[in-house]
């Protein structure tokens, strides 16, 4: 079943490069993503018993899905389905209107649609491989593949700024992944006497026998490497550029799915370290960098001028919160995972909405977007809803996650951490509030009074609504199957020796 999960987007992606007809290709995109989601749902259903550790795949020891991988796979699949629906409408819009860069007023081209669609599907295949891999070497190769496959996606609009963003993304992430390779080598060295290689199951079961100093060095390198890809400060410098210059579909996938996959890499390392008894060591590092990301994103959100960059910094903030939660341990890990689900869905919805705003106003500058409620009321409603969801206003699902992390921080007596956490959550809320409210209300400068309100295509609205509805539901009620899945995932992460 897992093999099918991997090969479906792979073959569809390769086919998309060859297909000439736009309509057929878009149908292929929708069909492949629907098929992928169906397979994922089937895997969820097959996993009713909470005790089973892993569904082994016919591919042997390389691929398999445990609770943790299943959660992230589910997020990726759902996100991609929404993105596929959105992308079909988006591509149609792009085909009809020539691209015009509002900042500098120049006209630009887009990349060929075949390249875009093909890379999108292959990107899905790579992310599936990351969530389903049981061998850390395969995990590494898949993360590198996601970097290389997403670069053409970021460079969809062919102009200077996106090129600069793509180059920074390529270089910084490739160097980071090279460091993660060093981490893999150290990990292999730690297990040299035992001959485990890089097989995750073997490493987990024999974690006690691993050499501790080498394991620590391995964790540091893996953390820096995958942390670069995840967007933790101070390795985050590529994230605002890449996520703001990419088309909204791609930004949503990058923020919602790719950052999670990078986090999964770190989580696998934490699993091994916890098994070897290094939980305090890893917890300290995660807490430190989580707080650092929170502080950095808070400071940069305050003076932001570009609303897509704003959303990117908000992603950095949430990655920091997730790292913090995982570092604190206990109930905070559950909160971090809940936060992951909530953040992916709401951030994707927000990025889709920002795409609508961009289509309506043709500018990314916050100062030039005013009176959204007047011009595009449905978009404005979604925009404000998204703001409340992403900042964790109850009853958002993200609120639950952040609250659990707060609870764990206070319970473990880390008052300084709690203080910084609360202060910067407040700063982020204030910064976001000012900007979102500025954008939604007010009167647009130079608007013609007889201008028709902007009509959003249905395909671009519905995914957002569904995502936001899911996050809202999560705030009230966590379904039983999700709860058991999250609990088993949490147990996997912090399983001691």
């Amino acid at each position, binding site marked *: 079943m897992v093999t099918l999960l991997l090969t479906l987007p792979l073959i569809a992606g390769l086919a998309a490069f060859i297909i000439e007809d736009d309509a057929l290709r878009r149908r292929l995109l929708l069909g492949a993503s629907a098929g992928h989601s169906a397979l994922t749902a089937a895997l969820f259903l097959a996993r009713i018993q909470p005790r089973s550790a892993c569904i082994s795949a016919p591919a042997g020891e390389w691929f398999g899905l445990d609770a943790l991988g299943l959660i992230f796979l589910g997020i990726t699949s759902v996100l991609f389905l929404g993105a596929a629906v959105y992308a079909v409408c988006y591509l149609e819009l792009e085909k009809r209107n020539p691209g015009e860069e509002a900042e500098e007023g120049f006209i630009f081209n887009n990349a060929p649609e075949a390249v875009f669609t093909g890379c999108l599907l292959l990107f899905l295949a790579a992310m599936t491989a990351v969530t389903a891999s049981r061998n850390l*070497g395969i995990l590494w*190769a898949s993360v590198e593949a996601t970097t*290389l496959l997403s*670069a053409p996606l970021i460079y969809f609009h062919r102009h200077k700024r996106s090129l600069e963003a793509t180059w920074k993304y*390529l270089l910084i992430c490739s160097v980071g992944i090279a460091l993660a390779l060093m981490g893999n080598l150290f990990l292999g060295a730690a297990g040299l006497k035992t001959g485990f290689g890089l097989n995750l199951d073997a490493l987990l079961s024999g974690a006690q026998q691993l050499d501790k100093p080498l394991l620590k060095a391995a964790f540091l390198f893996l953390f820096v490497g995958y942390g670069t890809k995840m967007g933790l400060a101070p390795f985050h410098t590529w994230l605002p550029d890449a996520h703001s210059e990419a088309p909204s579909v791609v930004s949503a996938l990058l923020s919602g799915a790719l950052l999670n996959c990078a986090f999964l890499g770190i989580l696998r390392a934490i699993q091994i370290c916890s098994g070897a008894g290094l939980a305090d060591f890893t917890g300290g590092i995660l807490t430190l960098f989580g707080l650092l990301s929170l502080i950095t994103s808070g400071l940069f959100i305050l003076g*932001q*001028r570009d609303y897509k960059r704003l959303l990117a910094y908000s992603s950095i903030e949430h990655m920091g919160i997730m790292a913090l939660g995982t570092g604190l341990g206990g109930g905070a890990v559950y909160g971090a995972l809940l936060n992951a689900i909530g953040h992916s869905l709401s951030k994707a919805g927000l990025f889709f909405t920002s795409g609508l705003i961009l289509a309506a106003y043709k500018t990314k*500058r916050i*100062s030039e977007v005013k009176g959204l409620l007047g011009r595009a009321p449905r978009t404005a409603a979604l925009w404000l809803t998204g703001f409340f969801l992403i900042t964790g206003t109850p009853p958002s699902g993200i609120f639950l996650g952040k609250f659990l992390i707060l609870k764990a921080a206070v319970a473990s007596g880390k008052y300084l951490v709690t203080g910084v956490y609360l202060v910067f959550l407040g700063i982020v809320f204030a910064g976001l509030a000012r900007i979102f409210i500025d954008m939604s209300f007010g009167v647009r400068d130079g608007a013609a009074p007889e201008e028709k309100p902007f009509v959003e295509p249905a395909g671009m609205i519905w995914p957002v609504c569904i995502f936001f509805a899911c996050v809202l539901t999560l705030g009230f009620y966590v379904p039983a199957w999700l709860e058991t899945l999250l609990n088993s995932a949490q147990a996997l992460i912090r399983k001691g020796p």
Partner: protein
Amino acid sequence: MNTFAELIIVFIILLNLVLAVSGSLSVCIRLAAIQGVAAGLLPLMAVGGMRGRAMAFAGFIILLKGVVFPWLMFRAREKTGARRDVDPLIGYPASIMLCLGAFAASSWLGSRLPLPHSGVAFIIPASLATIFTGFLLITTRAKAITQVLGYLVIENGIYIFGLALFVEQPLMVELAILLDVFVAVFVMGIAIFQISREFDHIDTDQMAELTDWHRPEDAKW
């Protein structure tokens, strides 16, 4: 055999020093290629290294790093018309002293880490120093091609480090790594070509439009 392996390691370290100070793009590309080939020859010097599989793999690496990558780089250089030199931004004395300091630090670090002792001395310091030289190349040169070269040098260093730790690696993982590097370089080459077409140059220190540090006079709240 061991002495020969040691000489190759010393040669790699000397190549790092020359790479750190060299100001000519074609020289840098050739040096990185020679370093890759030397690193590819190393496993043949190990005990029992002359087996068929090891020789095939070494041949593949030498082909990739010695022929394919320089060819890609030179093609990128021709297409972008980058003929000017790439003098290091921090000057000769600082570069060479940094490189030497990195080697000294890696020697100290290598003695502290309880890594398995291979027969060849200095292989851990050499690999760490090579990785540092790659970082130096990325940060102190202004051209996009040299940054890709820095990435290649980092991969060289990681490969040597991998050699130092194991004699046996699963073939699939090694091949996956090489494939990733190859595709990465290929994609970067395409990106460089796009950069030169878009900007008319490939000076990355002049690509600084996307930033959050704004001057006060730009404020347009």
